[in-house]
């Protein structure tokens, strides 16, 4: 189970632009490295990230091997109503990790 860290404010005013941070443990193996015997280490990367809030994907990203290991993202969204923010990562094999955080909007 990959370690995930989320930074979401607990509360926000309606209409306020809030800063969100997401960090997930993943080697993001580029596919360009070689092992100790010269063998090419196969690519193994997260390819897609989505943040779902209030039934809508409010931010998403497509990753290529140039995204550093343990991918880190800071992005923004407008606080519209209280609810759950879902953060989803999918890798090239279709494996998925996700976590959620609650936001109270006043």
């Amino acid at each position, binding site marked *: 189970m990959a370690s995930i860290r989320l930074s979401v404010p607990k509360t926000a005013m309606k209409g306020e*632009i*809030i800063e969100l941070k997401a960090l997930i443990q993943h080697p993001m193996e*580029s596919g*360009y*490295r*070689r092992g*100790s015997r010269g063998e*090419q280490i196969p690519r193994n990367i997260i390819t897609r990230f989505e943040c779902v*809030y209030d039934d*809508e*994907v*409010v*931010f*998403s*990203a*497509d*990753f*290529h*091997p*140039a*995204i*550093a*290991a343990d*991918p*880190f*993202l*800071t*992005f*923004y*969204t*407008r606080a*519209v109503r209280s609810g759950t923010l879902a953060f989803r990562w999918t890798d090239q094999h279709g494996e998925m990790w996700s976590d959620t955080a609650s936001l109270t909007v006043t």
Partner: protein
Amino acid sequence: MPDHSAQPEKTFSRRALIRLGAGSVLIAATPLPAFATPDDVKAAQQELFGSRVIREGRVTLKLPAIAENGYSVPFSVDIDSPMTEEDHVRQIAIFSPRNPIANVARFQFGPRAGRAAVATRIRLGGTQAVQAVAEMNDGSLWSGSAQTVVTLAACVVL
């Protein structure tokens, strides 16, 4: 007993010997994928945006002047846009003219984003100017770039 391969008569300074030794080892050990060229960046941009005109401006990229290590370089992009329903950024694509492949990442926004800005950490295969192209909801394209120097680690471990 440590290996002492240099003969006493040689006048090489210690520093020169280290540079020589480490340098040649680096060349032998580094796998050499073909690196991207600025043409590959153009091709990647055309694949995404067709042959629409790309104007410079509105896009600010931030990279450190010197990247401590090419494996993880802090990077941020901020696009000047009110992010309203009528006027917002749809997506931004990041390109490298020197990594093995030109595409670095693509970020999708929308009016709910509030701010078209992202920060992350990227890998850079050498000193270069990273480029970004933003697509607005009216289809217009804007670009920006930032230069960084990527240094080599001191002690290369095989």
